[in-house]
């Protein structure tokens, strides 16, 4: 293995970003994330207490009301605590519109093999332009975005 794994995906919102993976079993409502820390504060959430700031977040989909994703992500972005990129399983209009408008890279339809391989903290590159997601092995951390 050359320390690099590439998986196909589909572009929803354009952009390229690199960051550590944060996997959430539950869908995410960005309004229930503290805008001052980037930490998920929703009670009973699978990723309660985890910070999404600077992460490539991997979660099923968006949920909640129709404006709270915008209100939540916009505040996070103003303070610099937004996720670097988002990988979802199921596209849903509210999160799609929000990501497109705020310019946060968002992809879906990633190969199943990605989900079998990725773990919290792994370095992930999302390249929405090329419609690929890359997993960077810890032994080759020097690799940069091409």
């Amino acid at each position, binding site marked *: 293995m050359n320390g690099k794994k590439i998986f196909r995906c589909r572009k929803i919102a354009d952009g390229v970003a690199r960051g550590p993976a944060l996997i959430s079993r539950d869908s995410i409502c960005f309004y229930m994330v503290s805008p001052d820390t980037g930490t998920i504060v929703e009670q009973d959430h699978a990723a309660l207490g985890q910070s999404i700031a600077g992460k490539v977040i991997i979660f099923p989909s968006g949920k*909640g009301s129709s404006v709270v994703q915008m209100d939540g992500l916009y505040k996070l972005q103003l303070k610099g605590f937004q996720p670097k990129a988002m990988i979802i399983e199921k596209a849903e209009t*509210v999160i*799609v519109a*929000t990501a497109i*408008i705020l310019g946060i890279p968002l992809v879906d339809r990633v190969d199943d093999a990605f989900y079998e391989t990725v773990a919290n903290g792994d370095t992930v590159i999302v390249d929405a332009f090329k419609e690929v997601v890359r997993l960077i092995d810890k032994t080759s951390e020097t690799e940069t975005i091409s």
Partner: protein
Amino acid sequence: MHLTKEEQAIFDGHQGEGASIALKILVGIGRVFDAPRLVPIRRAHVALSNQEGDTWFAEKLQKAGAKCLIPPTVNPGYCMDVFLSKGLLSNEDIDAMQRCHEAYKNLGAQMNYSCTPHLLENAPFFGEVVAYSESSATVFVNSVCGARSNRESSQSALCAAIVGRVPEYGLLLEENRRAQALIEVEADLCDDFYYSILGWLTPKKIDNLIPVYSGIKERPTPEALMNLGTELNVTGAIPMFHVTGFTPEAPSEEAALGGREPKLRIKITNSDITNQLDSMFQPPGPIDFVIFGCPHYTLNQVKKIAALVEGNKVKTELWILTSFHTLEMARRTGLLEIIEKAGGQIVPDTCVDQSCWRHLAGKVGATDSPKCAYYCNIRDMSFIVRSLRECVEGAVRGEIR
């Protein structure tokens, strides 16, 4: 996606930058959902929120010269007159609400400030294609009115209102409106409140599949159906449901399912409802305030409160949020006087999730709306969630038992 000549001209900026931005966003969304084209709308509802992100986007479009081809109704912010007179607003609060108002007014919106436009001033017809944001309104117009809307975001609905079109995908198409999960309701649901609990627990059991609820014997009230749809879009993202025998696209279970087998089949019993209620939010105890009206209360609900408080005095703050229309009807019918005499207040144009409620931070309240309790948690307000009757009795006693 295919664009007509006119749409291509809008895309290319021939009708101004604002319309071009709006159309490009709609095309971007349409591409994700494989929409073949745009289709016209004559109605829209925008979930204005009077928060930074939403106002930023509305101002961006307004500065780019956008005007709504279809004047949308809009969600509540807060009633400046009421909260200014009580000294509850900071200069930033006042500035934010004024900015929001100016932006939407200049975009050409109908400044109704209500989250229940489907009951009054913007009620769509069966089969009509619309762009409705406000997740509790979207699910109502789909499920109860039989209109066709995707689960629009505030921003995508505003873009649709500007260009008078939506991408054709999802719930606009007959084949995507059929139920995917069959829920056999064995719970009694003897109060509208229990529909809120049913809505809250449904996505935990079926994820975001479209449910058909079977076994409900009595026609649910409009408020019950609003409660159900509202909560389906707090714990989940479910823009449509069916109730066999009562909602227009579910004359029978088979019709609701479109003749297909459900992907999931579950039962919901009285103990499911009770267990859910017992584990939600705060346990019973003393309260400082009661808030109703998420979504905005109807005249029927206001009437129920009036009947319970008449001749009593409340020990806690009692706030009832509603549309300007319902407030006026409460005035005309004498309900307002009864509620005000008891120490309660009916407020128009106002949402629970606003900075005007800062004085309630750190306090414990009661509400019949799990959605209110869920979102206000980030404003440091905690809630006991109970039925309308229990909350009103709590306001009179100062305690939920």
